[in-house]
Every structure is written in structure tokens, then in C-alpha cells.
């Protein structure tokens, strides 16, 4: 009898998400029936999506725009990691570094990355570098923060184990504190990735010529609501793709 209950629960948990999605679609169709121009049907959006493969927007098919956004995020993430992880390790491990550069970082950190946008555009224009820079600002913070916090809070017991084996402070850091912090660093990377997508959207809505943010902006200017929705759905898919890649990387680095 208990087994049967468990089975029913399992089936329920499988079916419930499907029902939720169906409900959403029904709701969507209903909204479309009220005002199809402002709320196009799912079919309209799919049609518009298919068209992006044949009709270029500003001389680029959808792949070009996806790649433009993805490239900006990946370049920014690359720099955030290669600067942010060492920086995080430094301020997490070294009290002096924490008190000096760490407190500067703390001072700047509360400023949301998008608040930097106007200043950066005024200083550096609307080219590629300011866009990457703004995404960098958005991804740098979570990576530094997660790295520093987890290095700082590494279980003292682990360090005691190392000390009993006569490990010097370099070994304590690189053989104990750092591997112990890997899961937290990856969590920071994950936050950075979704934050990066968010910031790149905003950056591309100001004077960009390509990218998913640009597509959404173009859809708004042309009153092409299906195109706006295509941009929204595709950026969501890019997010899913990045999350999958990140999970795979984490398995590779942390041995699952």
C-alpha cells in the first residue's frame, strides 16, 4: 500500500510540470486572443524565429546575434576568472590584502553593474570594449566574492590536518584551501554567468549593431513583438546552454 502511494506521488511529480506548462500555454493563447498585436500567439513567435534564419536582421542571421552576445559574455568571463579568482584567493587568504585592496573592492561592490553603463559609454563610447567591460564588472564581483569567502572560511580542521603533516602555507593554500573551495568558486561562476547574460542584454540595448539585446531593442523600435519574444526565448536557451556547460566543467574539475 505504501509502495502504491509512492508510485502515485512519483507519477504526480512527473505530470505536474507538464500540466503547469500546458496551463501557461493556454493562458498565453487566451492573452493573444485578447490582443494579438501586443501578445502574439506561440505560433507567431515560432514563425518569427524561423524567419530569423532566412531574413537577416541588420545583416546577421540569428546565429550571428547569438554568437555576438555569447562572445561578449565569454570574453568577460574569461577575464573575470583569470583576474577574479587569484584576486579572491589573495583577499581571502591574506589579512593585509583583505584590509587594503579587499576594502576597496567592498566599497565598489554594492554598485550594480548596470549603473556603470552610462559612465562607461560616456568615457569609452559604444564599441566592443566598453560592452565587454560592463559585462566584466558584472561577472567579476560574484567570482571574487565566492572565491574570497570560501577561502577565508575553509574548515580549520582541514588546515589542521595539513599542519600536522608539516605543510607550509603555500601547500595549505594550494593543496587544501583551494580544492576545498572549488565548489564555492563554481557557484560563483554560475552566478557570474547568469549575471553576465543580464548585463550583456542591457549593454546591447545601447548602441549595439548585433547581439540578442540588439534584437530585442530592434523588435521594440519596429513594434515587432514576436521578435522581442524570440530574443527573450533565445537568451534563455543560451543561459541553459551555459549552465549545462558549467555543470560539465565542474564535474571535470571536481571529479563529480
Amino acid at each position, binding site marked *: 500500500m505504501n509502495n502504491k502511494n509512492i508510485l502515485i506521488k512519483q507519477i504526480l511529480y512527473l505530470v505536474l510540470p507538464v500540466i503547469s506548462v500546458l496551463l501557461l500555454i493556454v493562458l498565453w493563447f487566451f492573452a493573444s486572443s485578447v490582443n494579438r498585436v501586443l501578445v502574439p500567439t506561440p505560433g507567431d513567435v515560432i514563425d518569427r524565429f524561423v524567419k530569423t534564419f532566412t531574413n537577416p536582421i541588420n545583416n546577421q542571421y540569428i546565429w550571428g546575434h547569438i554568437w555576438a552576445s555569447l562572445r561578449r559574455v565569454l570574453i568577460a568571463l574569461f577575464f573575470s576568472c583569470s583576474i577574479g579568482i587569484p584576486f579572491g584567493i589573495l583577499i581571502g587568504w591574506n589579512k593585509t590584502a583583505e584590509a587594503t585592496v579587499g576594502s576597496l573592492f567592498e566599497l565598489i561592490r554594492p554598485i550594480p553593474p548596470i549603473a556603470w553603463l552610462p559612465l562607461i559609454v560616456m568615457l569609452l563610447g559604444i564599441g566592443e570594449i566598453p560592452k565587454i567591460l560592463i559585462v566584466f564588472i558584472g561577472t567579476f564581483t560574484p567570482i571574487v566574492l565566492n572565491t574570497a569567502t570560501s577561502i577565508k572560511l575553509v574548515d580549520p580542521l582541514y588546515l589542521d590536518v595539513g599542519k*600536522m*603533516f608539516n605543510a607550509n602555507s603555500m*601547500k595549505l593554500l594550494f593543496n587544501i584551501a583551494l580544492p576545498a573551495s572549488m565548489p564555492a568558486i563554481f557557484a560563483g561562476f554560475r552566478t557570474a554567468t547568469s549575471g553576465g547574460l543580464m548585463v550583456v542584454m542591457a549593454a546591447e540595448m545601447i548602441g549595439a549593431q548585433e547581439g540578442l539585446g540588439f534584437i530585442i531593442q530592434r523588435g521594440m523600435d519596429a513594434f515587432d513583438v514576436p521578435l522581442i519574444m524570440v530574443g527573450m526565448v533565445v537568451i534563455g536557451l543560451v543561459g541553459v546552454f551555459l549552465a549545462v556547460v558549467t555543470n560539465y566543467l565542474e564535474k571535470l574539475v571536481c571529479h563529480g
Partner: protein
Amino acid sequence: MDKKLRLRINEISKSYKLKKKDYHKVIDSLSLDIFDNEFLVILGPGHCGKTVLLNIIAGLETPDVGFVELDGVKIDGPNPDMGMVFQKTGVFPWLTVMENVELGPRFKGEAKSERRERAQKYINLVGLQGFESHRPPQLSGGMKQRVGIARAYTNNPEILIMDEPFGALDAQTRYSMEEEISNIWSIEKRTVIFVTNNIEEALALGDRIVLLTECPARVKEIYEVNMPRPRDLMSEEFLLLRQKISENTDLSIDSEV
């Protein structure tokens, strides 16, 4: 037995700050001499400062008052001659069982084949053969404790400190591990400082049993155990000593991990 003094614990006290001006005294002017190659058991009730005492001996913590000397030299940090089996195991989840066990010699820079051979010996000894490439999250609490034991032994310390190493083991495994530890000690003599809150375990293992008081910890009594190994847990001598100790303490009710 030759009685060469190895460790001298001299009048140490340790308190922890609770609130602003509220101190919690954990160890109160405790003195104890530990001799070369003896199997010393420290027996005390829960939360009475046993782990803190071991950490001070190991040089991981400093006493507020008093000092510990190793071979006449004051301890002011962890010493490579000592090894520790931690109560909370401290096994690294990102390393395999083998990588955990060979950690000490690896940090020393010992050649891989050499250290692996020794690590394997102790992995087998604690009954973990077949689990070499498992990672700690896949292991039970008792298995992690055994990894911690093998790791400490593999580093070949002259003085081995063990903090309730069998706390998370089931009775069966606990019994056979006690026998095994006692055997290793008979073969490769070294100084062992072994903490437990279990009287029978203390009697099965110790040359001397140091009974601690309730918080704050002080030495209440020291018992010499002159019984041959392996010990007969049913012998009259054993039962008598057991009764004597349990009458002197109220830790008989205390059997928490």
C-alpha cells in the same frame, strides 16, 4: 619497560571566551607526563576538554597558562614527529581514499611508488581494500574514520594522537579495530595517546589510563594496566579494574559519539 620521558604537560589551563566578560574554563592546570613507547589512554566524559587537550599537545592550539615539552623542548607549533587521528576525521572530500591516506608522505615529497605501497598496507589494515579510488562522500562515517586512521599511520609518526577514533564505528568493527591497533602497537612500538569515553576500550588498549574530571579537565586518577595483550575482557583482573574506574566516574552513562 624503560620510562624515558617524551612529553611533559606542565600545569596547562585553557579558557574560551563565551561573551564579553564570561569565560568558559575547559582545562584547569593539568599536568601529565607521557613516556616513550607507552600506550596512554585518556578517559573522560563528553565535552570535558579532551579534544582541546590533544590539540594543545599537537601544537595546534596554545594554552593560556603552562606549557608542553617534547623531549625537553617547548612546543610552539605542530611537530612532524607527531601524527593525529582527528575526531571529526578531517578527511578531504576532493581526494580519493588512496590520495587521502598518502597525504603525509606526499607533502614530504616522498616518491609515489614508495608512499603508495605504505598507504596500501594501512588501507588493507583498516579494511578498506577495494575502496582506494572511492571519494569520501561515498563512504560511511565509520569508513571515513578508518581513512583518518590509515592516513595518520602512513605518515609513520613517532607519537600518534588518536581522538576517539572509533566513535563512529559499529560495535563489531570497533572491537576488531581495537585489536588491530593493539597489534600494530605491539609490533611497531611507538607512543600512542588515545582518547576515549569508553571504559572497556580504555582497558583493552591502555598501558596507563588517565581519568579526567568533568569540565574543566584535570587529572583525576591514573591507573596502570599490567595485563598481557591481547586482553581477556572477561578476566577477573579486567572486571575488577573496570569496576574500580567506573566507581570513580559518572561517565558510565555517557556513550555519545
